[in-house]
């Protein structure tokens, strides 16, 4: 039987939606018994949220002032000390999980699987490689622990309504002090979060300036959408780095994705391949984005986008 430990991602007060998606992946393994661990300075609020998620058997809390900010080298030894009871340890494949899970795996002396997109039994998985141009099937050894990250865009969050027991556990490990959190600049925005938004409007290099990105924001606000961007737009500093969609940015799966002035490089497309409907607006009818777009429109974005925003009323 698979006994799976899911590492909760949170900011100290709110559980990140990535956790419910990671649990969904774990729950797809037959007979899975799933525990969630919340490592925090004060775990109560986050643990209460995690306890509501369906498929969860128990929520474990590990409280330590050193866990206030998620530093991989601090969290990993604590996770390792709990891992003995489990056949699998899962985290989300985002900057939190990508930073942490290889550290956990190396301390356990096993390889790590990145970006699980589907499970086929307890030790067989599929994942994308080469910017999503190839899907590889993997067989992990049955006699060692599976440490993996889950491609959250491939899963729908498990429902709520559960009331799993919350248990505080203490771990007795020495934590390193060689790595220290200094600060965080979160982009504050009232717009929906890019990774969970059901609609996303994204702009590319064609916008030409940070000011012109207002066109994207205006359309996004009309639609109640999150805002994304290509690497080129981020590199040019039209928008902050946390808006980048793609192989090395965020992998998202909104119901609606509107790509504006984005050519559709493979590195970008891998970030949106699970989107419900892709709309592309581009002045070049040969742009590769049209090969994957459900609805395409050839033309000048500076004309089309204001018109569309206006027409949405």
């Amino acid at each position, binding site marked *: 039987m698979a006994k799976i430990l899911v590492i909760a991602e949170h900011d100290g007060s709110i559980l990140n939606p990535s956790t419910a998606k990671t649990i969904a992946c774990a729950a797809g393994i037959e007979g899975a018994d799933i525990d969630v661990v919340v490592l925090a300075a004060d775990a109560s609020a986050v643990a209460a949220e995690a306890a509501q998620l369906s498929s969860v058997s128990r929520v474990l809390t590990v409280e330590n002032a050193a866990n206030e900010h998620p530093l991989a080298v601090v969290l990993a030894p604590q996770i390792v000390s709990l891992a003995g009871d489990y056949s699998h340890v899962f985290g989300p494949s985002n900057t939190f999980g990508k930073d942490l899970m290889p550290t956990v795996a190396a301390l356990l002396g096993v390889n*790590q699987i990145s970006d699980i997109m589907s499970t086929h039994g307890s030790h067989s998985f599929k994942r994308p490689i080469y910017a999503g141009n190839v899907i590889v099937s993997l067989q992990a050894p049955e006699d060692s622990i599976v440490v993996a990250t889950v491609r959250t865009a491939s899963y729908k969050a498990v429902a709520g309504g559960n009331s799993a027991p919350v248990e505080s556990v203490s771990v007795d490990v020495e934590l390193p002090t060689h790595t220290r959190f*200094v600060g965080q600049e979160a982009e504050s925005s009232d717009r929906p979060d890019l990774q969970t938004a059901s609609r996303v409007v994204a702009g590319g290099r064609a916008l030409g300036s940070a000011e012109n990105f207002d066109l994207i924001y205006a359309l996004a606000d009309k639609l109640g959408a999150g805002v994304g961007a290509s690497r080129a737009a981020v590199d040019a500093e039209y928008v902050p780095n946390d808006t980048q969609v793609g192989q090395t940015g965020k992998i998202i799966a909104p119901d609606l994705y509107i790509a504006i002035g984005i050519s559709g490089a493979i590195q970008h497309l891998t970030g949106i391949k699970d989107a419900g409907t892709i709309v592309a607006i581009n002045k070049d009818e040969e742009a590769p984005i049209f090969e994957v777009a459900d609805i395409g429109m050839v033309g000048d974005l500076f004309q089309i986008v204001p018109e569309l925003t206006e027409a949405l009323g």
Partner: protein
Amino acid sequence: MDKILVGLKRVVDYNVRVRVKSDGSGVETDGVKMSINPFDEIALEEALRIKEAGGANEVVVVSIGSSEAQQQLRTGLAMGADRALLVTCDEAPDVLTCARLLLEIVNREQPGLVILGKQAIDDDNAQTGQMLAALWGRPQATFASRIEIKGDTATVLREVDVGMETIEVDLPAVITADLRLNEPRYVKLPDIMKAKKKPLEEIAMADLGAGDSPEIVHTAYEPPVARERGVMVEDVSALLAALKDKGLV
């Protein structure tokens, strides 16, 4: 610090649209353009800038792979690295083994800093730096967008999902490079000539004794499910109608 160690992986160039072999046994790499993994190039550029600013005496590049990876190491030397090491093996080892091999190199070379790319664009794993740091028992600073070194510590600005995070690490440490850390320099012809004379040492993987790790077997390769080309619309009202049709507005 005395030395910075940088990892360079030989990968299929990012412009190549890779294909699965017709029998599903792997990815077609015959006759395909190979390059330094773009993130590793950024890692090397950063090491060179630190050295050029007086922060280090030597930059050593290391690759693990077949003897063909000499090409990428030569390019690294042409960019400005002082010395190259190639850990030779016939088949690409798994990530944990790579991290163990790098640890052996670290133990030999005693670098004050190791900079790797945050991920390789072939297998997209994003694991090696973290594994090396864990095995080494030293700090890791992944997805670096800016690095400042002062004495025995490095302050690293990291690109994370919510925005930017700053951490401070004691050296030696492992840092992994993100896209916006810098823009790598172009290699000039005279540098390529000079690089031919720089030392490139080959070490057989077996001689480093990385031990066995539980291997994850790749059982099949397949192309992704392709999205289909949809409809083209002529004007904004047709676009709106198409969206309404799908119940999206």
